[in-house]
């Protein structure tokens, strides 16, 4: 079944990639990727954490409208399918709409660019309580220093309202990223992000009662009893999902991307997430992603 899904996905992408860029296909971006993470369960208790793999397919259509000499409005619609074979409760489908307003300070690729964006995402998980609606807004400033070097930074706000309040999320983040086109074919990019706010974590059924029962110490007892939680069974019978608050997540990532054609690229990405909750408990995770990207 898993083989069938992956093969279908690749065949679909391959046939679209081979298609001629005409009419509505112009401006369409397709991406398929496979991600492996050592802590898909976002668990702090190392002996019980679950690693796993997930597959993502997304298609987005962006249309730019120049408003005048300096301002550009971009409307974008995107659909994302995520398949998590080992933990199928996390299978999801998302629909996203975004508005992006860009101001370029002068003509040319080297002109600094300021962007303001807003978006709305509706996500439906197989595990229905996680399903919800997200509003987001952000700003971004970017500058190309040379034909092969670009820097960008920005701030984002996200507010996710799920069917069950355990899965609600409010975060804001700042990020810095750099893109270096080493040759005409090879691109190396890297970035760092600091996220403040909430994140969803999970605990095995054997651990959670100890945390809220006081057996893991008074600090954990007092803090974890203030968190929203529910039995989700997402990662096995009795597993609990809970919402950490007043947390910080530091992300560092690096991506190597060879261009296969001027419209298609592969990307191999390494990402390390260091997540710390309000009382200093860590939920670290590493992500390795291999993606195929095509732009019509």
């Amino acid at each position, binding site marked *: 079944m898993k083989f069938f899904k992956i093969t279908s996905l690749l065949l679909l992408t391959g046939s679209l990639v081979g298609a001629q*860029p005409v*009419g509505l296909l*112009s*401006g369409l*971006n397709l*991406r398929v*990727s496979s*991600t492996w993470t050592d802590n898909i369960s976002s668990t702090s208790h190392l002996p019980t954490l679950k690693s796993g793999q997930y597959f993502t397919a*997304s298609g987005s259509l962006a*249309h*730019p*409208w*120049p408003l*005048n*000499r300096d301002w*550009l409005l971009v409307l974008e619609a995107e659909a994302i399918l995520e398949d998590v074979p080992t933990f199928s409760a996390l299978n999801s489908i998302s629909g996203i709409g975004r508005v992006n307003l860009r101001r*370029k300070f002068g*003509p*040319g*690729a080297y*002109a600094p660019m300021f962007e303001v964006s807003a978006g709305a995402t509706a996500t439906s998980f197989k595990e229905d309580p996680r399903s919800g609606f997200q509003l987001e807004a952000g700003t971004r400033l970017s500058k*190309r220093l*040379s*034909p*092969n070097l670009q820097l960008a930074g920005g701030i984002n706000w996200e507010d996710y309202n799920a069917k069950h309040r355990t899965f609600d999320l409010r*975060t804001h983040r700042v990020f810095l990223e750099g*893109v270096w*086109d080493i040759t*005409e074919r090879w*691109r190396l*990019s890297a970035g760092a992000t600091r*996220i403040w706010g909430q*994140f969803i974590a999970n605990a095995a059924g054997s651990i959670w009662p100890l945390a809220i029962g006081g057996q893991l110490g008074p600090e954990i007892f007092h803090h974890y009893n203030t968190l929203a939680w529910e039995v989700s069974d997402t990662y096995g019978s009795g597993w609990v999902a809970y919402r950490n608050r007043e947390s910080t*997540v530091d*992300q560092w*990532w690096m*991506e190597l*991307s060879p*261009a*296969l*054609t*001027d*419209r*298609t*690229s592969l*990307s191999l*990405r390494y*990402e390390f*997430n260091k*997540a710390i909750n309000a009382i200093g408990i860590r939920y670290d*995770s590493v*992500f390795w*992603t291999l*993606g195929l*990207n*095509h*732009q019509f």
Partner: protein
Amino acid sequence: MPRLFAYFLSALALLSANLRGEEAQFTMKFFHDGSPLEYAVASLTPLDFPVSLIPTSNAVVTQADKEYDPYVTVVMVGTETSFPNKDTVQHHLYSVSKAKRFEKPLYASGTTETVVFDKVGVVTLGCNIHDWMLAYVYVAPTPWFAKSDADGLAEIKGIPPGRYQLTVWHPRIKKPIEQEITLVAGPNLPEEMNLNLKRDRRIRRAPAGRASGY
């Protein structure tokens, strides 16, 4: 005054040669690192007679599939060049080159704008929306020019015999090459030239990945 007289005599000689059908042909073959080189421009500026700079044809640079086509266009100074937008999206054609500084913002799909290139030099074209779009217009002070094809060949026909300044240019050349040559009526010996070029530093169009994690 003597110079004007010399020009007059040269023009007479040229007219006489043309009336007799004595025209020169000149072919160049360009290489880079041993491979045929496309987009090299060879132009011939006469040294012994004045040249008529009245454009007789227009040039076209198409915006299609979010690229300029052709990548290199050669025109005689004063030539009107049209830029049809055959895409379904708007473009923002611009140049900040000394030879022609202009902007065509809000460039709607299906429309055509024109630009007259009235100064000799190289004009670099860009699109302020699609940063990877890049093309060049080489504005020559002469009607005798050619651009090399995929085999590296550039052929100039219908040249009056005489002394010329040969100028060679390429989008990645460090400095244009200039040399004096004398052409005789009929086919001239083909000239081969290996160009020393800078690295190709065009902006990458291929898409990048996307964030994962939180």
